[in-house]
C-alpha cells in the first residue's frame, strides 16, 4: 500500500470523524447542562437535513437560505422538545430524562416519516465542481465545508464558554447547579439554551452531510450511535474533547478498513472504544471526578 492510499484512508477517516465530531458536540453540550445523554441528538441531524431539503426542493429557496432554515428550524424543535418533554420532569432524574429522550427520538423520526415521506432525499453540494487532488489523493469540496464548519463550531463554542456571560453561567451550572443558582443563575433557562445549541449543531451536521450522503427519516439513530461513541471516547468534557473523540473514531474506522476488514470496522472501533474506557473511564480528555464544559 503506497503513500497516496494511506493519505486517502486518512482523509476518509477525517471526513467521517468530523461528522461524528459535530454530532458529539451536541451530546457534550446537553450533558454539561443536564447530566444526561440526549438520545434525540441523532434526530436533530436528520431534522437539519430534512428541513433544508424541504426548504430547498419543495419551497425552492436558495441553498444558503435553506441551510439556515435547516439549522434554525432544528434549534426551534430542540427548544420545543426541551420545554414539552424535559422541563416538566422537575426532579431532573437523569435516568428518567434519558428514557424521555429515547422516546423523543422515536417520536421525531416517525413524525418525519409522516411529514416528509419514507424516501431518501438529497441536496446539491455547497460548492459545485470536481474533487480536489493532491499527492495522489482526492477530497471532495463538500468535505472542506465539513472540516471548516466543524472547526468554526469549536472555536465559537470555546469562545462562548470562556468569554461570554451566558457561557460562563452554563459552565458554572454544570460544575455546581445549586451554587450557580445561589449567585443568580437560572438553570432551567440554561437547559433550554443548551438544547437550542445542541439542536442547532445537530442541524448543522445534517445540512452539511446531506449533499454527501443523502438523508432520510431513519438516519438519526446511526448518527446518534457514532456521535455518542465519539463523545464518550473524547470524555464528554469540552468541545475540543468531542472533536478529538470524533476524529479518533473516524480514523480508527478507516484504518480498520485499510489494514483489517471492512466487515468488522464497527466492531473493531467499538473494541478500541471499550479498551480506552477500561483504561481511562473518563475518556481521552476527560478529568476524573470533575466535570468541565
Amino acid at each position, binding site marked *: *500500500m*503506497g503513500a497516496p*492510499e494511506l493519505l*486517502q484512508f486518512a*482523509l*476518509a*477517516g477525517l*471526513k*467521517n470523524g468530523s*461528522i461524528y465530531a459535530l454530532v458529539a458536540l451536541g451530546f457534550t453540550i446537553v450533558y454539561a447542562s443536564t*447530566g*444526561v*445523554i440526549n*438520545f434525540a441528538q441523532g434526530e436533530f441531524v436528520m431534522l437539519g437535513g430534512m428541513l433544508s431539503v424541504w426548504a430547498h426542493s419543495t419551497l425552492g429557496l436558495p441553498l444558503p437560505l435553506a441551510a439556515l432554515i435547516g439549522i434554525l428550524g432544528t434549534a426551534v424543535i430542540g427548544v420545543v422538545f426541551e420545554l414539552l418533554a424535559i422541563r416538566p420532569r422537575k426532579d431532573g432524574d*437523569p*435516568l428518567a430524562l*434519558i*428514557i424521555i429522550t*429515547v422516546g423523543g*427520538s*422515536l417520536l421525531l*423520526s*416517525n413524525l418525519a*416519516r409522516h411529514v416528509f415521506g*419514507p*424516501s*431518501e*432525499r*438529497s441536496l*446539491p453540494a455547497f460548492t459545485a465542481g470536481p*474533487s480536489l487532488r493532491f499527492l495522489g489523493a*482526492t*477530497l*471532495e469540496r463538500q468535505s472542506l465545508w465539513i472540516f471548516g464548519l466543524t472547526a468554526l463550531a469549536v472555536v465559537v463554542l470555546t469562545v462562548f464558554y470562556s468569554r461570554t456571560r451566558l457561557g460562563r453561567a452554563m459552565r458554572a451550572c454544570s460544575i455546581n447547579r445549586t451554587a450557580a443558582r445561589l449567585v443568580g443563575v437560572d438553570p432551567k433557562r440554561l437547559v433550554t439554551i443548551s438544547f437550542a445549541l445542541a439542536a442547532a449543531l445537530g442541524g448543522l451536521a445534517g445540512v452539511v*452531510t446531506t449533499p*454527501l*450522503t*443523502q438523508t*432520510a*427519516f*431513519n*438516519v438519526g*439513530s*446511526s*448518527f446518534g*450511535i457514532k456521535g*455518542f461513541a465519539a463523545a*464518550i471516547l473524547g470524555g464528554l468534557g469540552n468541545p475540543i474533547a468531542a472533536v478529538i473523540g470524533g476524529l479518533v473514531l473516524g480514523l480508527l*474506522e*478507516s484504518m480498520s*478498513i*485499510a489494514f483489517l*476488514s*471492512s*466487515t468488522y470496522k*464497527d466492531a473493531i472501533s467499538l473494541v478500541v472504544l471499550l479498551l480506552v474506557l477500561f483504561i481511562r*473511564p*473518563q475518556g481521552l480528555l476527560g478529568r*476524573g*471526578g470533575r466535570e468541565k464544559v
Partner: protein
Amino acid sequence: MIVNTRKVLILFLAALLLAVPLVGCSSDGGKDTSEKPAEVKDPYRIGAVLSETGTYAGLGAPERNTLEMEVAKINDAGGVNGHPIEIVFEDDATDPDTAVAATTRLIDKEGVMAIIGATGTGATMAMRQEIDRAGIPQLSPAGGTAVTASFDPLVFQTPWSNSLVVPFELAYIKKQGITKIGLIADSGGFGKDGAGVVKEKVAGAGITIVAEEAFNAGDTDMSAQLTKIKAAGAEAVLMVTAGKEAATVAKNMMDLGMTVPLFGTHGNARTEFIEGAGAGAEGFRFAAGKILLPESYDSGSESYKVATEFIDEYSAQFDKAPDTFAGHAYDALHIIINAMMTLDEGFTPAELRDAIEATDGFVGIGGVFTYSATDHNGMTEDDLVMYQVTDGKWVLAK
C-alpha cells in the same frame, strides 16, 4: 482518581438503551383495512405485512399503494366469483420480530387465507414459523435468495432473486471484457445474500474477485473501502445493496477519480439513487426486470399491455411512476387472485397453495411466472435486462 460511579452507571445504562430503540419498534398495531365490501358474500381476506416504517419504508410504501389500487379494481370488477377481496395491512417497521407478531395476529385474529409479505428478506424468513403453523400460503415481495433457496412448500417469491440476477449480470460483465472485479456489499440481509451468490458464481463466469468490501446501513462514506478496491486493481466494481448508501458509493467513486465502471443490481432500481448520486450515477449499469422501461417488453405482447396499463394507472393515481417494488406487490396479489379464480367456493388454504403452485405462464410485471413443485421463484433470465444511467435516466444498456 475518583470516578463518579453513578455517572458511569448511567452512561452504561444509556449505552444499553441505545440498542433498543434503533431496531424501531413503532408498529402501529392498529387494524387497517381496505374498502369495506357492499356485497352479500363474505370477503376473502388476505393479510399484507409490509415495511411502512423503518429502513425499508421506501419499498413498503409503493407496495401498499399497489395493493390498495389493485384490490379496489378487482372488487369493482366483481371480486373473485362474487366474493370481494379484503386486505388487512400490518406494518412490520422493517423488524423481523414485529413481522412475526403481525403474522400471528393476521392468522389468529383476522383469519386470513394467504399472506403477502414481508417487504424485507429477514422479516420474510422470520414469518415462516407462523406460516408453517397455520399452513397458509405466503407470497413474498422480498428479493433475497434465501426466500426460495431455503425451500418451503408454502412460500413463494415474486422478485427476481439474487441467484437469478447475479449469474445474468456476471455474464454481462464478462462480455465487456472484464475479468477482475471489486465487490462491495452492505452487511445487511440483501447485501450479504447477494455477495454470497456472487462469490459462488464468479468462478463459473470466468471472473475473479480482487477485493471484497462491506459497509453498514447508515455509513456516511465508503471512500476507504473503494480505495482498497482501487489499489487491488479491479477493472470494475460490483455493488450489492438496496439501501441509500448505493448513492454514496457511486459518488465516492467519482470523487476518488475512479474510472472503472460501477455495476449494481435490481436493488438499485430506484430514482432516488440517481437523484442522490447525481453525476456519479452516469454510466451506472444494473440488471432488473423490464418495468422500468415498458418499451423493453416487446410492444404488442401481453406483457407490454399489462405493464403499460399498470404504469399508467399507478402514475395517474400516485403522481409517480411505479418502481420494481410496486411490481412485486402487483404480481403477488394477482398470483393469489388468479389461483383463487381457478378454485370452487369454500376452498381451503391447502387447495389455494396447490393452485398457486400450479401458476403457469402468468404474465405479471416482474416477468412471466411459472411455479412448480421445486421452483417457487418462477422467473427466468429472459425476464431481465441490463439498464444504464445516461443523462440522469434509465436506458437499455448495450
